[in-house]
Protein backbone atom coordinates (compact mmCIF):
# COMPACT_ATOMS: atom_id res chain seq x y z
CA UNK A 1 0.00 0.00 0.00
CA UNK A 2 1.53 3.25 -1.12
CA UNK A 3 1.30 6.41 0.88
CA UNK A 4 -0.55 9.48 -0.38
CA UNK A 5 2.69 11.31 -0.99
CA UNK A 6 4.11 8.49 -3.05
CA UNK A 7 0.98 8.35 -5.14
CA UNK A 8 1.08 12.06 -5.76
CA UNK A 9 4.71 12.05 -6.76
CA UNK A 10 4.10 9.18 -9.09
CA UNK A 11 1.02 10.59 -10.83
CA UNK A 12 2.36 14.14 -11.11
CA UNK A 13 5.79 12.85 -12.19
CA UNK A 14 7.59 15.14 -9.79
CA UNK A 15 11.35 14.83 -9.42
CA UNK A 16 12.02 12.24 -6.74
CA UNK A 17 15.24 13.75 -5.44
CA UNK A 18 13.37 16.90 -4.46
CA UNK A 19 10.28 15.23 -3.03
CA UNK A 20 11.96 12.47 -1.01
CA UNK A 21 15.28 14.18 -0.55
CA UNK A 22 16.83 11.17 -2.23
CA UNK A 23 20.47 11.33 -3.15
CA UNK A 24 21.67 10.80 -6.73
CA UNK A 25 24.78 8.73 -7.27
CA UNK A 26 26.33 8.79 -10.70
CA UNK A 27 29.07 6.29 -11.39
CA UNK A 28 31.31 6.86 -14.36
CA UNK A 29 33.33 3.74 -15.05
CA UNK A 30 35.42 2.49 -12.14
CA UNK A 31 37.11 5.80 -11.55
CA UNK A 32 34.52 8.42 -10.74
CA UNK A 33 31.52 8.76 -8.47
CA UNK A 34 29.43 11.90 -8.33
CA UNK A 35 27.15 12.20 -5.29
CA UNK A 36 24.41 14.83 -5.13
CA UNK A 37 21.99 15.66 -2.35
CA UNK A 38 23.97 14.67 0.70
CA UNK A 39 24.27 16.09 4.17
CA UNK A 40 27.88 15.60 5.14
CA UNK A 41 30.96 13.45 5.38
CA UNK A 42 31.08 11.04 8.32
CA UNK A 43 34.43 9.41 7.69
CA UNK A 44 37.04 9.66 5.03
CA UNK A 45 40.04 7.41 4.56
CA UNK A 46 41.83 6.12 1.50
CA UNK A 47 39.82 2.89 1.54
CA UNK A 48 36.30 4.20 2.13
CA UNK A 49 34.20 7.35 2.32
CA UNK A 50 31.11 7.33 4.53
CA UNK A 51 28.51 9.92 3.62
CA UNK A 52 25.34 10.92 5.45
CA UNK A 53 22.30 11.39 3.21
CA UNK A 54 18.80 12.33 4.36
CA UNK A 55 17.62 8.90 5.38
CA UNK A 56 20.56 6.57 4.91
CA UNK A 57 24.30 6.29 5.16
CA UNK A 58 26.21 5.74 1.92
CA UNK A 59 29.65 4.19 1.83
CA UNK A 60 31.96 4.11 -1.17
CA UNK A 61 34.64 1.43 -0.91
CA UNK A 62 37.74 1.47 -3.01
CA UNK A 63 41.46 2.18 -3.12
CA UNK A 64 43.30 5.51 -3.16
CA UNK A 65 40.09 7.49 -2.89
CA UNK A 66 40.39 11.23 -3.41
CA UNK A 67 37.78 13.92 -3.17
CA UNK A 68 38.31 16.06 -6.23
CA UNK A 69 35.95 18.72 -4.97
CA UNK A 70 33.02 19.04 -2.66
CA UNK A 71 30.43 21.72 -2.15
CA UNK A 72 27.03 21.98 -0.49
CA UNK A 73 25.26 20.23 -3.37
CA UNK A 74 27.62 17.65 -4.75
CA UNK A 75 30.95 15.97 -4.36
CA UNK A 76 33.17 14.07 -6.73
CA UNK A 77 35.18 11.07 -5.60
CA UNK A 78 37.98 9.77 -7.75
CA UNK A 79 39.86 6.52 -7.25
CA UNK A 80 39.64 2.79 -7.83
CA UNK A 81 36.06 2.01 -6.80
CA UNK A 82 35.11 -1.41 -5.49
CA UNK A 83 31.53 -1.10 -4.21
CA UNK A 84 28.85 1.26 -3.00
CA UNK A 85 26.73 0.30 -0.02
CA UNK A 86 23.71 1.70 1.85
CA UNK A 87 23.20 1.34 5.60
CA UNK A 88 19.96 2.01 7.36
Amino acid at each position, binding site marked *: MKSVKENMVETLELPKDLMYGASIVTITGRREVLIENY*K*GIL*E*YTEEYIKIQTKNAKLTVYGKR*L*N*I*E*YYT*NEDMKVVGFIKSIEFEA
Partner: protein
Amino acid sequence: MKRILRYLSGYVRVELTGYATERFLNLCTNHNIYIWDMEHREDAYEFSMSISDFFSIRPLVKKTKTRVRIQKKMGFPVFLFRYRKRKLFLAGFFLGVGIIYLFSCYIWNVEICGNSVLSEETLFRYLETEKVYVGSKKKDINCEELEAEIRQHFPNVIWTSVRLEGTKLTVDIKENLVTAEENKKTEEIPQDIVADKTGVIQSIITRSGVPQVKAGDKVKKGKILVLGRIEIRDDIGEVKEYKYCKADADIIAKTTYSYEYRVPKQTEQKVFTGKEKKRYALWYNKKYLELPSFGKDYPLYEKETEKKQLKIMKNFYLPFYLQKNTYREYEKKTHEVSKKEAKQIALANLEVFLSKLEEKGVQIIEKNVIMDTEKNEYVLKGTITANEKFGIYQDTKQLEVPKEEGNIENESE
Protein backbone atom coordinates in the same frame (compact mmCIF):
# COMPACT_ATOMS: atom_id res chain seq x y z
CA MET B 1 39.03 27.41 -17.33
CA LYS B 2 38.49 26.69 -13.65
CA ARG B 3 42.18 26.06 -13.23
CA ILE B 4 43.07 29.42 -14.80
CA LEU B 5 40.68 31.25 -12.49
CA ARG B 6 42.12 29.43 -9.48
CA TYR B 7 45.62 30.31 -10.57
CA LEU B 8 44.78 33.98 -11.05
CA SER B 9 43.10 34.39 -7.66
CA GLY B 10 45.71 32.29 -5.86
CA TYR B 11 45.24 29.31 -3.57
CA VAL B 12 46.86 27.44 -0.70
CA ARG B 13 47.52 23.79 -0.08
CA VAL B 14 46.51 23.00 3.51
CA GLU B 15 47.20 20.10 5.84
CA LEU B 16 44.48 19.35 8.35
CA THR B 17 45.05 17.29 11.51
CA GLY B 18 43.29 16.98 14.82
CA TYR B 19 40.29 15.55 16.57
CA ALA B 20 37.10 16.21 14.56
CA THR B 21 38.41 16.57 11.06
CA GLU B 22 35.23 15.30 9.37
CA ARG B 23 33.19 17.81 11.27
CA PHE B 24 35.46 20.55 10.10
CA LEU B 25 34.91 19.49 6.49
CA ASN B 26 31.14 19.48 6.94
CA LEU B 27 31.23 22.91 8.52
CA CYS B 28 33.23 24.12 5.55
CA THR B 29 30.54 23.04 3.10
CA ASN B 30 27.89 24.67 5.25
CA HIS B 31 29.80 27.94 5.20
CA ASN B 32 30.13 27.73 1.42
CA ILE B 33 33.85 27.23 1.49
CA TYR B 34 35.01 25.49 -1.63
CA ILE B 35 37.50 22.68 -1.17
CA TRP B 36 39.11 20.64 -3.90
CA ASP B 37 41.72 17.97 -4.56
CA MET B 38 41.32 16.38 -1.14
CA GLU B 39 43.62 13.50 -0.22
CA HIS B 40 43.79 11.33 2.83
CA ARG B 41 47.14 10.66 4.42
CA GLU B 42 47.51 8.77 7.73
CA ASP B 43 45.62 10.90 10.23
CA ALA B 44 45.84 13.96 8.04
CA TYR B 45 43.91 15.45 5.16
CA GLU B 46 45.44 17.59 2.50
CA PHE B 47 43.37 19.87 0.33
CA SER B 48 43.37 23.14 -1.61
CA MET B 49 41.33 26.25 -0.92
CA SER B 50 41.37 29.83 -2.06
CA ILE B 51 43.35 32.42 -0.11
CA SER B 52 40.33 34.47 0.90
CA ASP B 53 38.59 31.35 2.25
CA PHE B 54 41.64 30.43 4.24
CA PHE B 55 41.33 33.60 6.31
CA SER B 56 37.69 32.86 7.17
CA ILE B 57 38.18 29.33 8.56
CA ARG B 58 39.80 30.48 11.84
CA PRO B 59 36.62 30.15 13.93
CA LEU B 60 35.83 26.72 12.45
CA VAL B 61 39.30 25.48 13.33
CA LYS B 62 38.84 26.64 16.93
CA LYS B 63 35.41 25.07 17.17
CA THR B 64 36.49 21.64 15.95
CA LYS B 65 39.84 21.69 17.74
CA THR B 66 41.77 20.89 14.62
CA ARG B 67 45.03 22.27 13.31
CA VAL B 68 45.65 23.66 9.83
CA ARG B 69 49.06 24.13 8.37
CA ILE B 70 49.90 25.70 5.04
CA GLN B 71 51.97 23.40 2.87
CA LYS B 72 52.30 25.46 -0.27
CA LYS B 73 51.15 28.79 -1.65
CA MET B 74 50.32 28.87 -5.31
CA GLY B 75 48.90 31.21 -7.90
CA PHE B 76 49.66 34.45 -9.63
CA PRO B 77 49.37 36.80 -6.59
CA VAL B 78 51.88 34.61 -4.77
CA PHE B 79 54.19 34.73 -7.76
CA LEU B 80 54.02 38.53 -7.82
CA PHE B 81 54.66 38.72 -4.08
CA ARG B 82 57.64 36.42 -4.28
CA TYR B 83 59.30 38.45 -7.01
CA ARG B 84 58.22 41.87 -5.78
CA LYS B 85 61.79 43.06 -5.44
CA ARG B 86 62.81 42.20 -9.01
CA LYS B 87 61.63 45.42 -10.55
CA LEU B 88 64.23 45.50 -13.29
CA PHE B 89 63.14 42.09 -14.47
CA LEU B 90 59.59 43.33 -14.77
CA ALA B 91 60.75 46.49 -16.52
CA GLY B 92 62.78 44.41 -18.95
CA PHE B 93 59.86 42.19 -19.69
CA PHE B 94 57.60 45.10 -20.53
CA LEU B 95 60.37 46.79 -22.49
CA GLY B 96 60.78 43.66 -24.58
CA VAL B 97 57.09 43.42 -25.30
CA GLY B 98 57.03 47.13 -26.10
CA ILE B 99 59.93 46.94 -28.50
CA ILE B 100 58.45 44.01 -30.38
CA TYR B 101 55.18 45.89 -30.66
CA LEU B 102 56.91 49.09 -31.79
CA PHE B 103 59.00 47.31 -34.42
CA SER B 104 56.01 45.47 -35.75
CA CYS B 105 54.46 48.85 -36.67
CA TYR B 106 57.00 49.36 -39.44
CA ILE B 107 57.67 47.72 -42.77
CA TRP B 108 60.92 45.85 -42.93
CA ASN B 109 60.76 44.39 -46.40
CA VAL B 110 59.16 45.21 -49.72
CA GLU B 111 58.82 42.54 -52.36
CA ILE B 112 57.64 42.86 -55.93
CA CYS B 113 56.41 39.86 -57.89
CA GLY B 114 55.24 39.35 -61.44
CA ASN B 115 56.91 42.31 -63.16
CA SER B 116 58.60 41.58 -66.48
CA VAL B 117 58.91 44.81 -68.46
CA LEU B 118 58.87 47.23 -65.55
CA SER B 119 62.07 46.95 -63.59
CA GLU B 120 62.06 46.54 -59.85
CA GLU B 121 64.13 49.72 -59.59
CA THR B 122 61.45 51.89 -61.15
CA LEU B 123 58.77 50.32 -59.04
CA PHE B 124 60.77 50.80 -55.86
CA ARG B 125 61.45 54.40 -56.82
CA TYR B 126 57.77 54.95 -57.47
CA LEU B 127 56.81 53.32 -54.19
CA GLU B 128 59.25 55.60 -52.43
CA THR B 129 57.45 58.65 -53.79
CA GLU B 130 54.27 57.12 -52.41
CA LYS B 131 56.00 56.91 -49.02
CA VAL B 132 56.20 53.15 -49.09
CA TYR B 133 59.68 51.92 -48.32
CA VAL B 134 61.57 49.90 -45.77
CA GLY B 135 61.00 51.71 -42.51
CA SER B 136 57.71 53.39 -43.31
CA LYS B 137 54.84 53.02 -40.90
CA LYS B 138 52.35 50.27 -41.54
CA LYS B 139 49.55 52.49 -40.35
CA ASP B 140 50.07 55.00 -43.18
CA ILE B 141 49.71 52.42 -45.92
CA ASN B 142 46.38 51.89 -47.51
CA CYS B 143 46.71 48.81 -49.68
CA GLU B 144 43.68 49.46 -51.83
CA GLU B 145 44.61 53.06 -52.51
CA LEU B 146 48.12 52.02 -53.39
CA GLU B 147 46.80 49.45 -55.83
CA ALA B 148 44.70 52.06 -57.58
CA GLU B 149 47.61 54.48 -57.74
CA ILE B 150 49.99 51.93 -59.21
CA ARG B 151 47.49 51.10 -61.90
CA GLN B 152 47.02 54.78 -62.68
CA HIS B 153 50.71 55.59 -62.77
CA PHE B 154 51.69 52.61 -64.92
CA PRO B 155 49.11 52.15 -67.67
CA ASN B 156 50.72 48.85 -68.65
CA VAL B 157 49.85 47.33 -65.31
CA ILE B 158 46.50 45.63 -65.66
CA TRP B 159 46.22 44.07 -62.22
CA THR B 160 47.88 44.66 -58.87
CA SER B 161 47.53 43.35 -55.40
CA VAL B 162 49.24 44.87 -52.38
CA ARG B 163 49.44 42.75 -49.28
CA LEU B 164 50.82 43.29 -45.81
CA GLU B 165 52.02 40.14 -44.12
CA GLY B 166 53.61 40.76 -40.78
CA THR B 167 56.22 43.38 -41.55
CA LYS B 168 56.54 42.49 -45.21
CA LEU B 169 54.79 44.28 -48.03
CA THR B 170 54.20 42.23 -51.17
CA VAL B 171 53.23 43.89 -54.43
CA ASP B 172 51.93 41.52 -57.10
CA ILE B 173 51.73 42.88 -60.61
CA LYS B 174 50.38 41.67 -63.91
CA GLU B 175 51.52 43.57 -66.96
CA ASN B 176 49.84 43.90 -70.30
CA LEU B 177 52.42 42.40 -72.61
CA VAL B 178 50.45 42.71 -75.86
CA THR B 179 50.68 46.35 -76.74
CA ALA B 180 47.87 46.54 -79.23
CA GLU B 181 47.96 50.30 -79.48
CA GLU B 182 51.51 50.41 -80.79
CA ASN B 183 50.77 48.06 -83.65
CA LYS B 184 47.88 50.19 -84.79
CA LYS B 185 49.92 53.37 -84.76
CA THR B 186 52.72 52.03 -86.94
CA GLU B 187 50.23 50.75 -89.45
CA GLU B 188 48.90 54.18 -90.13
CA ILE B 189 52.22 55.73 -91.05
CA PRO B 190 53.24 55.08 -94.68
CA GLN B 191 56.52 53.21 -94.76
CA ASP B 192 58.95 51.80 -97.29
CA ILE B 193 61.08 48.75 -96.93
CA VAL B 194 64.74 49.59 -97.31
CA ALA B 195 67.76 47.32 -97.54
CA ASP B 196 69.67 47.29 -94.27
CA LYS B 197 72.80 45.79 -95.81
CA THR B 198 74.23 44.66 -99.08
CA GLY B 199 72.92 41.45 -100.53
CA VAL B 200 71.41 39.57 -103.45
CA ILE B 201 67.64 39.28 -103.50
CA GLN B 202 66.54 35.66 -103.61
CA SER B 203 62.80 36.11 -103.58
CA ILE B 204 60.31 38.87 -102.97
CA ILE B 205 56.64 38.54 -102.24
CA THR B 206 54.85 41.83 -101.88
CA ARG B 207 51.61 42.20 -100.02
CA SER B 208 51.27 45.94 -100.15
CA GLY B 209 53.32 48.69 -101.77
CA VAL B 210 55.21 48.80 -105.06
CA PRO B 211 58.21 46.44 -105.42
CA GLN B 212 61.32 48.19 -106.72
CA VAL B 213 63.54 45.14 -107.10
CA LYS B 214 63.17 41.63 -108.37
CA ALA B 215 64.78 38.32 -107.56
CA GLY B 216 68.42 38.17 -108.59
CA ASP B 217 69.04 41.91 -108.12
CA LYS B 218 72.10 43.02 -106.24
CA VAL B 219 71.17 45.72 -103.74
CA LYS B 220 73.28 48.04 -101.66
CA LYS B 221 72.52 49.30 -98.21
CA GLY B 222 69.85 52.01 -98.24
CA LYS B 223 68.16 50.98 -101.49
CA ILE B 224 64.39 51.08 -101.39
CA LEU B 225 63.03 47.58 -101.93
CA VAL B 226 59.31 48.19 -101.64
CA LEU B 227 57.80 51.64 -101.95
CA GLY B 228 54.94 52.65 -99.74
CA ARG B 229 53.74 55.22 -102.26
CA ILE B 230 51.45 54.06 -105.00
CA GLU B 231 51.09 56.25 -108.08
CA ILE B 232 47.67 56.52 -109.56
CA ARG B 233 47.82 57.62 -113.14
CA ASP B 234 45.10 59.03 -115.32
CA ASP B 235 44.37 58.00 -118.88
CA ILE B 236 47.26 59.96 -120.35
CA GLY B 237 49.63 58.28 -118.04
CA GLU B 238 50.31 61.22 -115.81
CA VAL B 239 50.31 60.96 -112.08
CA LYS B 240 46.97 62.04 -110.74
CA GLU B 241 47.55 61.39 -107.09
CA TYR B 242 49.59 59.38 -104.67
CA LYS B 243 48.20 56.84 -102.27
CA TYR B 244 50.26 55.91 -99.27
CA CYS B 245 50.36 52.67 -97.41
CA LYS B 246 52.63 50.71 -95.21
CA ALA B 247 54.78 48.51 -97.39
CA ASP B 248 54.64 44.87 -96.46
CA ALA B 249 56.63 42.12 -98.10
CA ASP B 250 58.56 38.94 -97.44
CA ILE B 251 62.01 39.44 -98.87
CA ILE B 252 64.75 36.88 -98.63
CA ALA B 253 68.26 37.86 -99.66
CA LYS B 254 71.63 36.23 -99.75
CA THR B 255 74.09 38.12 -97.60
CA THR B 256 77.65 37.58 -96.51
CA TYR B 257 79.11 38.03 -93.07
CA SER B 258 82.81 38.42 -92.53
CA TYR B 259 84.20 36.67 -89.54
CA GLU B 260 87.42 37.12 -87.69
CA TYR B 261 88.59 35.80 -84.38
CA ARG B 262 91.99 36.18 -82.84
CA VAL B 263 93.56 33.91 -80.30
CA PRO B 264 96.73 35.23 -78.64
CA LYS B 265 99.63 32.80 -78.48
CA GLN B 266 100.27 33.51 -74.87
CA THR B 267 97.52 33.84 -72.32
CA GLU B 268 97.48 34.56 -68.65
CA GLN B 269 95.41 32.19 -66.67
CA LYS B 270 94.10 32.33 -63.18
CA VAL B 271 94.97 29.19 -61.32
CA PHE B 272 93.20 28.86 -58.02
CA THR B 273 95.37 27.53 -55.28
CA GLY B 274 92.36 26.10 -53.52
CA LYS B 275 92.90 28.21 -50.45
CA GLU B 276 89.95 30.28 -49.36
CA LYS B 277 88.92 32.38 -46.44
CA LYS B 278 85.52 33.44 -45.24
CA ARG B 279 84.87 36.72 -43.51
CA TYR B 280 81.60 38.00 -42.24
CA ALA B 281 80.41 41.57 -42.24
CA LEU B 282 77.40 43.38 -40.85
CA TRP B 283 75.49 46.13 -42.63
CA TYR B 284 73.28 48.57 -40.89
CA ASN B 285 71.90 51.56 -42.71
CA LYS B 286 74.84 51.82 -45.13
CA LYS B 287 77.31 51.38 -42.32
CA TYR B 288 79.63 48.48 -42.82
CA LEU B 289 81.49 46.50 -40.26
CA GLU B 290 83.71 43.63 -41.26
CA LEU B 291 84.49 41.25 -38.52
CA PRO B 292 88.24 40.75 -38.10
CA SER B 293 89.77 37.59 -39.44
CA PHE B 294 92.97 35.75 -38.79
CA GLY B 295 95.88 35.09 -41.09
CA LYS B 296 97.47 37.08 -43.87
CA ASP B 297 95.57 38.48 -46.80
CA TYR B 298 96.25 36.87 -50.14
CA PRO B 299 98.28 38.90 -52.68
CA LEU B 300 95.89 37.94 -55.48
CA TYR B 301 92.35 36.94 -54.77
CA GLU B 302 88.84 36.81 -56.04
CA LYS B 303 86.17 38.09 -53.74
CA GLU B 304 82.67 36.70 -53.69
CA THR B 305 80.05 38.39 -51.58
CA GLU B 306 76.68 37.19 -50.47
CA LYS B 307 74.31 39.59 -48.73
CA LYS B 308 71.38 38.48 -46.71
CA GLN B 309 68.82 40.38 -44.70
CA LEU B 310 68.33 39.10 -41.22
CA LYS B 311 64.84 38.15 -40.25
CA ILE B 312 62.87 36.67 -37.44
CA MET B 313 60.47 33.98 -38.57
CA LYS B 314 59.44 34.13 -42.21
CA ASN B 315 58.20 37.67 -42.63
CA PHE B 316 59.75 39.75 -39.90
CA TYR B 317 62.69 41.49 -41.52
CA LEU B 318 65.25 43.40 -39.49
CA PRO B 319 67.29 46.38 -40.73
CA PHE B 320 70.49 44.37 -40.53
CA TYR B 321 72.28 42.62 -43.35
CA LEU B 322 74.79 39.89 -42.98
CA GLN B 323 77.42 39.72 -45.68
CA LYS B 324 79.60 36.73 -46.32
CA ASN B 325 82.84 37.48 -48.15
CA THR B 326 84.67 34.55 -49.58
CA TYR B 327 88.25 35.24 -50.64
CA ARG B 328 89.79 32.75 -53.04
CA GLU B 329 93.48 32.90 -53.69
CA TYR B 330 94.85 32.46 -57.20
CA GLU B 331 98.14 32.69 -59.04
CA LYS B 332 98.81 34.07 -62.48
CA LYS B 333 100.36 31.65 -64.91
CA THR B 334 101.29 32.26 -68.53
CA HIS B 335 100.21 29.59 -70.87
CA GLU B 336 101.54 28.85 -74.35
CA VAL B 337 98.66 28.15 -76.68
CA SER B 338 99.35 25.55 -79.35
CA LYS B 339 97.83 25.82 -82.78
CA LYS B 340 95.53 22.92 -82.10
CA GLU B 341 94.20 24.51 -78.95
CA ALA B 342 93.76 27.84 -80.67
CA LYS B 343 91.79 26.18 -83.42
CA GLN B 344 89.53 24.55 -80.91
CA ILE B 345 88.88 27.83 -79.12
CA ALA B 346 88.27 29.70 -82.36
CA LEU B 347 85.94 27.05 -83.74
CA ALA B 348 83.97 27.00 -80.54
CA ASN B 349 83.61 30.74 -80.84
CA LEU B 350 82.50 30.41 -84.45
CA GLU B 351 79.90 27.88 -83.40
CA VAL B 352 78.49 30.37 -80.91
CA PHE B 353 78.47 33.08 -83.56
CA LEU B 354 76.60 30.88 -86.01
CA SER B 355 74.06 29.69 -83.51
CA LYS B 356 73.38 33.30 -82.56
CA LEU B 357 72.71 34.09 -86.21
CA GLU B 358 70.43 31.10 -86.53
CA GLU B 359 68.51 32.22 -83.52
CA LYS B 360 67.76 35.44 -85.38
CA GLY B 361 66.25 33.42 -88.25
CA VAL B 362 69.26 33.44 -90.55
CA GLN B 363 69.75 30.37 -92.67
CA ILE B 364 73.41 29.57 -93.22
CA ILE B 365 74.30 28.25 -96.65
CA GLU B 366 78.06 28.29 -96.74
CA LYS B 367 81.00 29.04 -94.55
CA ASN B 368 84.62 29.54 -95.57
CA VAL B 369 87.11 29.94 -92.79
CA ILE B 370 90.90 29.65 -92.77
CA MET B 371 93.27 29.47 -89.84
CA ASP B 372 96.23 31.83 -90.08
CA THR B 373 99.27 32.34 -87.90
CA GLU B 374 100.41 35.88 -87.28
CA LYS B 375 103.12 37.34 -85.11
CA ASN B 376 101.60 36.98 -81.70
CA GLU B 377 98.31 35.37 -82.40
CA TYR B 378 96.36 32.88 -84.40
CA VAL B 379 93.58 34.28 -86.60
CA LEU B 380 90.53 32.49 -87.86
CA LYS B 381 89.19 34.42 -90.81
CA GLY B 382 86.46 33.79 -93.32
CA THR B 383 83.09 34.61 -94.77
CA ILE B 384 79.73 33.14 -94.13
CA THR B 385 77.01 33.16 -96.74
CA ALA B 386 73.47 33.04 -95.53
CA ASN B 387 69.86 33.53 -96.53
CA GLU B 388 67.88 35.83 -94.31
CA LYS B 389 64.86 38.03 -94.07
CA PHE B 390 65.76 41.34 -95.45
CA GLY B 391 64.78 44.93 -95.13
CA ILE B 392 63.86 47.46 -92.49
CA TYR B 393 61.06 49.97 -92.37
CA GLN B 394 61.56 53.62 -93.19
CA ASP B 395 59.01 56.41 -93.47
CA THR B 396 57.93 57.09 -97.02
CA LYS B 397 58.73 60.46 -98.52
CA GLN B 398 55.54 62.36 -99.20
CA LEU B 399 55.56 63.81 -102.70
CA GLU B 400 53.47 66.66 -103.99
CA VAL B 401 51.15 65.74 -106.82
CA PRO B 402 52.43 67.49 -110.02
CA LYS B 403 50.10 70.45 -110.42
CA GLU B 404 47.76 70.59 -113.33
CA GLU B 405 48.30 74.34 -113.77
CA GLY B 406 50.72 73.65 -116.61
CA ASN B 407 48.02 71.88 -118.54
CA ILE B 408 45.60 74.71 -118.05
CA GLU B 409 48.16 77.19 -119.27
CA ASN B 410 48.80 75.13 -122.35
CA GLU B 411 45.17 75.09 -123.19
CA SER B 412 44.80 78.82 -122.80
CA GLU B 413 47.63 79.39 -125.19
